[in-house]
């Protein structure tokens, strides 16, 4: 139980507060409309459907106000920055912004459904009252019109052949309601995980229907967040027009035939320079290349360290946009500048916190190693400068990969670090383990033949490659044994399944007792 508090305490608290506000709003407005004397006659016409329509409307207003905020990345970075003085637990909550956004979206969908059903009943009963279907009081109330000393009660004014459908489409409230609900439904269907993962553009462009959705809402509630979000997009536009230069372009079209276990995988490294650009470790940027697409911005984690005078990204072939980019770069003559690039960012994520923990466990799966490339490079620089702000005294690095080929560009970095550490006699600082999860018989044969060699046959590093998946229990045991009474930060950039496993292990091996080891779990979001 104590372990759960360590890892889930603050987010659970936030959810409880949010649900509490929702429930309060719902009940408050329900009672307001159900008991209030000024609605007595309306209730005669509509019954409790009035309250059932108004209460979700209040909850909707509240949630629509909230929903834009978790996706204002610059705002979140700002909050993160200002929370530097506060505990790292608070800052970690900024990582769960997308989870919160989805939660609020579900609530909006639910409230919209209730609101819609209640209004269907309302319009039907208003219409019937107007047509004189019900008792005399209803008909009389409906007859009240906008005159000197009366105002109308029933919004349906004409008595000529009227059906609810006609009223809905001829009144502003009805028409806007239908249009924005339609926008909401389209947004929801295109946000399903299947669509998002496979065709992000459909999701992204359709999601901009939120503008229509917000246009139909009570403006007072949503004006603030809309302005903030508009500022975010404006900031992106400003950054887009700022000049970005290329420092060096290197394309590794890896079709290496020296070793039978290698498989080709295209990785492009871009090194860019931009005036006034300042980054921290593990941050990401959005890139836009007008030559490929005017409107698309794609996120990439930076692989350079803040101490360098440029910033770099490693781009892997993973879809239309990246394929086209690699194609353009390959066709470039030697030493030429690449196509114009817009750069938005940097935006901060969990990796910024890695130096705050005394001990860090970094797990990168496949291409997920990129944020850690930045971290390891930064370590190397800080080591050289003997930076006193470095709180970390031990790092465990685990790289899981199916194909050995992705090792190439990263192996150089690890080799440098190895040499550096050897020179300073500081073997203890960084322990890294590489796991080749997609091995087969030819791998095993190859390794057997080169067993006696000093360096690893696959990476050329002194540290030997492990085969198969790591046994996390063993790893956690070892870390716990080596670091009693420490706070250990676990950082993962990889698939959700692995995140679940590691999160559970963190919970299992943590102890609330300050004399024992505590594991905190942080997950990257891609």
């Amino acid at each position, binding site marked *: 139980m104590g372990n759960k508090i360590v890892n889930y305490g603050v987010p659970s608290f936030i959810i409880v507060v949010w649900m509490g506000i929702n429930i309060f709003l719902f009940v408050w407005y329900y009672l307001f409309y159900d008991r209030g004397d000024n609605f007595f006659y309306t209730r005669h016409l509509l019954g409790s459907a009035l309250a059932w329509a108004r209460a979700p409307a209040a909850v909707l207003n509240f949630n629509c106000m909230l929903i834009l905020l978790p996706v204002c990345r610059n705002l979140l970075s700002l909050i993160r920055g200002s929370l530097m003085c506060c505990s790292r637990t608070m800052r970690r909550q900024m990582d769960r912004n997308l989870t919160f956004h989805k939660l609020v979206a579900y609530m909006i969908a639910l409230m919209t459904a209730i609101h*819609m059903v209640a209004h269907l009943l309302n319009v039907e009963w208003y219409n019937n009252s107007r047509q004189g279907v019900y008792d005399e009081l209803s008909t009389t109330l409906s007859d009240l019109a906008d005159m000197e000393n009366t105002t109308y009660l029933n919004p349906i004014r004409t008595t000529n052949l009227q*059906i609810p*459908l006609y009223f809905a489409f001829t009144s502003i409230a009805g028409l806007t309601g*239908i249009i924005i609900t339609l926008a909401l439904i389209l947004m929801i269907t*295109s946000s399903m995980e*299947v669509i998002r993962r*496979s065709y992000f553009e459909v999701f992204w462009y359709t999601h901009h229907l939120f503008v229509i959705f917000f246009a139909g809402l009570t403006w007072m509630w949503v004006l603030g967040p809309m302005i903030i979000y508009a500022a975010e997009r404006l900031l992106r536009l400003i950054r887009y027009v700022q000049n970005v230069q290329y420092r060096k372009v290197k394309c590794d079209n890896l079709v290496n035939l020296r070793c039978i276990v290698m498989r080709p995988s295209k990785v492009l490294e871009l090194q860019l320079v931009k005036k006034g650009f300042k980054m921290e470790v593990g941050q990401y940027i959005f890139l836009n290349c007008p030559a490929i697409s005017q409107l698309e911005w794609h996120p990439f984690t930076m692989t350079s360290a803040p101490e360098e005078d440029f910033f770099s990204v490693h781009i892997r072939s993973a879809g239309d946009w990246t394929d086209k980019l690699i194609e353009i770069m390959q066709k470039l003559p030697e030493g030429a500048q690449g196509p114009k690039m817009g750069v938005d960012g940097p935006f901060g994520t969990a990796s910024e916190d890695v130096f705050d923990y005394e001990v860090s466990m970094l797990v990168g799966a496949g291409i997920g190693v990129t944020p850690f490339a930045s971290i390891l490079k930064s370590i190397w620089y800080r080591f050289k400068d003997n930076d006193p702000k470095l709180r970390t005294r031990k790092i465990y690095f685990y790289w899981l990969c199916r194909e050995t080929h992705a090792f190439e560009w990263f192996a150089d970095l690890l080799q440098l670090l190895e040499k550096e550490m050897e020179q300073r006699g500081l073997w203890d600082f960084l322990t890294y383990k590489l796991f080749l999860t997609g091995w087969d018989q030819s791998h095993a044969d190859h390794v057997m033949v080169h067993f006696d060699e000093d360096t690893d046959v696959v990476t050329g590093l002194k540290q030997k490659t492990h085969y198969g998946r790591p046994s996390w229990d063993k790893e956690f045991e070892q870390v716990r044994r080596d670091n009693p009474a420490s706070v250990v930060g676990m950082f993962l950039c990889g698939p959700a399944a692995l995140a679940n496993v590691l999160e559970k292990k963190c919970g299992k091996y943590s102890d609330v007792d300050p004399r024992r080891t505590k594991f905190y779990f942080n997950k990257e979001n891609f």
Partner: protein
Amino acid sequence: MGKIEWAMWANEQALASGLILLAGGIVGVAGQFRGWEFAAYAVAAGVFVCLLEYPRSKRAKGTSVERSGQYCFTVCVKAFGPLTRNYYVRAFLHAAICVPGGFMLATVLGCVCLGIASLIYLAAAIRGEHWEPILPRKDVRKPVAESIKNPPQNPPPRPPPETRRKQAKDLEGAAYDNPSSVTDD
């Protein structure tokens, strides 16, 4: 956006429309609304659309993710052959189904959503997509080669005992040239 299979989004949209039609229809019937006959129709139409759209199609490229328990639906839908395989048929079917929903407020939203789904299916059909059932794969194991059953009877040839002793003391003299290359160039 070249690699999009529009049918995937059309499928999500159509399933959602089916549910909305169903919900609107239930409200219309339960509340005994004016024009409740349309609502009753919407209930039936909503159920039909949901059943038709529940099984996901197999993707032309990439891994397909099934909806839970969709296998029996897949079998039923597959049984209709070209009627369910072809997206033109689906597009026109949905367009036809959605029309009666447009006559009543409770079902009009379902009608419009289904209409949009029909348009997306039309786009998918024009691009040449079609519905493929996701069926469990039967793994074919590679047959074991015959040679594994007949291990060699004799040990590999070794040089005579004198040469072997010499190898231990004199590595240079023991070296010999291989007739064929042993590296993997």
